[in-house]
């Protein structure tokens, strides 16, 4: 096809790439390959976002007044946003997610980094076994992970409480107010540490070992090598695993929803997404749910961009 119509671009314009022969019809080839992705992107991402924004400005008003008023759907401006941002339950949910995240994210990333560094230590035994065992929870869905840990927390089935009872102590409450955050963070840690460890470990293995040889000759011990060479060099991987952890954490839903039947501490609006779900499907308040979704999405976006910018400057900025 391309052999028939030869229209090489002038070499002075693009000196670096090799000259390409391409017919005008070929301009449509990349679009053909990208078309399915674009269609799905528009239908399942862009239109829903647009629709959400549209809905967030719509609501019901009583029309006509008095006993003859009827509910009509209409534009109500920023009322839904005002309602969402002044809703104490929604704000409390955001607060809970932030508390949970401030426990879960550092422990997942910190432990993942620690395990990755230990795996990368010379002469470590049982390396393959440990790596596989720690990675196994990645295959366990969040709902099932919550079920497993839920039973390990539940007073009547918990092994910890079994031992406590044998020793004559009272039952430990894993679902109490401060403890619950740690119980939830522990589920996140169990589920997430292996995946993040593998990503960090893989970046560690990509570092040429000559660097370590040089450091060893200079008298550095393994701890110094880990802290001063390995950690700075895997910082980009840490930033990105951190970003994904933040995205996942702020969308906390299935873990508290699964644990809810086991405890009364978790209300039906315990996290923002539970509140959004309830507004949309139980209270028939689509506008309110949409406004809360938009607020949450913008919050997540701003939070992750700020985080990315901050760490990018720290990890990539001082290289030059």
């Amino acid at each position, binding site marked *: 096809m391309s052999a028939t119509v030869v229209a090489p671009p002038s070499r002075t314009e693009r000196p670096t790439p090799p000259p390409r022969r391409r017919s005008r019809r070929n301009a449509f080839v990349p679009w053909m390959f990208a078309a399915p992705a674009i269609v799905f992107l528009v239908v399942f991402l862009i*239109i829903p976002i647009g629709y959400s924004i549209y809905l967030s400005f719509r609501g019901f008003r009583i029309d006509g007044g008095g006993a003859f008023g009827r509910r009509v759907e209409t534009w109500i401006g920023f009322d839904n946003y005002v309602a969402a941002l002044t809703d104490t339950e929604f704000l409390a949910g955001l607060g809970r997610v932030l508390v949970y995240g401030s426990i879960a994210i550092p422990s997942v990333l910190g432990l993942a980094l620690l*395990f990755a560094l230990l795996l990368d230590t010379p002469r470590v035994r049982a390396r393959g076994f440990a790596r596989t065992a720690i990675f196994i929870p990645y295959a366990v869905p969040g709902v099932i992970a919550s079920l497993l840990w839920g039973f390990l927390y539940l007073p009547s089935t918990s092994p910890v409480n079994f031992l406590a009872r044998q020793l004559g102590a009272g039952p430990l409450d894993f679902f109490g107010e401060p403890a619950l955050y740690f119980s939830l963070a522990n589920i996140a840690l169990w589920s997430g540490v292996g995946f993040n460890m593998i990503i960090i470990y893989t970046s560690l293995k990509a570092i040429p070992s000559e660097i370590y040889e040089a450091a060893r000759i200079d008298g550095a011990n393994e701890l110094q090598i880990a802290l001063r060479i390995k950690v700075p060099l895997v910082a980009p991987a840490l930033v990105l695993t951190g970003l994904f952890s933040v995205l996942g954490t702020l969308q906390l839903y299935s873990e508290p929803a699964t644990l809810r039947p086991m405890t009364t501490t978790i209300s039906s609006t315990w996290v923002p997404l539970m509140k959004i779900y309830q507004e949309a499907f139980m209270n028939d308040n689509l506008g309110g749910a949409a406004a809360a979704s938009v607020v949450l999405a913008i919050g997540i976006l701003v939070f992750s961009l700020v985080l990315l910018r901050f760490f990018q400057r720290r990890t990539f900025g001082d290289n030059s």
Partner: protein
Amino acid sequence: MSTLSPPRAQPSIRSRPTPARRASASRSGPRLASTVLLLGALYCLIPVAWVVIASSKSPRELFTTFSFAPGSGLFDNLAALNAYAGGQFWQWGLNSLLYAGVGALASTLVSAMAGYALAKFRFKGRDLLFAVILAGVLVPGIVLAVPQYLLLASVGIAGSYWSVLLPVIINPFGIFLCRVFATAAVPDDTIEAARLDGASEFRIFGAIVLPMMSQGLVTVFLLQFVGIWNNFLLPFIMLSDQDKYPVTLGLYTFLSKGAGDSDLYPLVIMGSAVSVIPLIILLLVLQRFWRADLLAGGLKG
């Protein structure tokens, strides 16, 4: 050799050599590292071991015997799970396989095509398209579920298999990774040579590009497979017919029903055990195809 070391790290180390500490650390270091790693492995395996053991307990034993002591109700529990609502549990398993298998396959193909287009063609709007896809990575997918439901309900397919399959086909992160893989794995000269030989664009993609990208594509497939398998909110919002539930949603409803009725607990535990074990075996088998290095490389890009 020291020329290869990063300029930043080396001087600071050279400034404080501690040969005495090094000698002791290198003797006890690996042992300590192994111990910590084994503790980590134990922590990750204990819940799995617990659920397997607990699945063998009769309802009474579950609440009275020590957690890690095997019980006598293994086959009763299995029979009860098997009999629940006429074998509905196995239907859920098949549904999960369908959603995750077909969804991830379609998603990988769509991502591969888009990634190839973005990596190997120069066209107007490419940068805009790539920017939109990158932004899509950051959009919390879960916030989309409610409007997606409303839109699918308006065309009448909410509640069907399609309503769970279609939304998971678009995977911005998968497209991003495929673009990285295509850039790295497919040489321009090979494509150009095939064009000169008169191969059609689809043939080039199917016979040359896809095989060259295959290792990366397996990783994209596995990521998306696990992602769909673990997804809870989308089927939770979309589906009302229990026969169409995936395993995760089915077990969730088990537990919700069993809230006041601890007789259902052994069923939930058996169901968790039965659904976790094949996943773990799958992970162990597929681990060697899992190219984390490609993923880590992609993340750096």
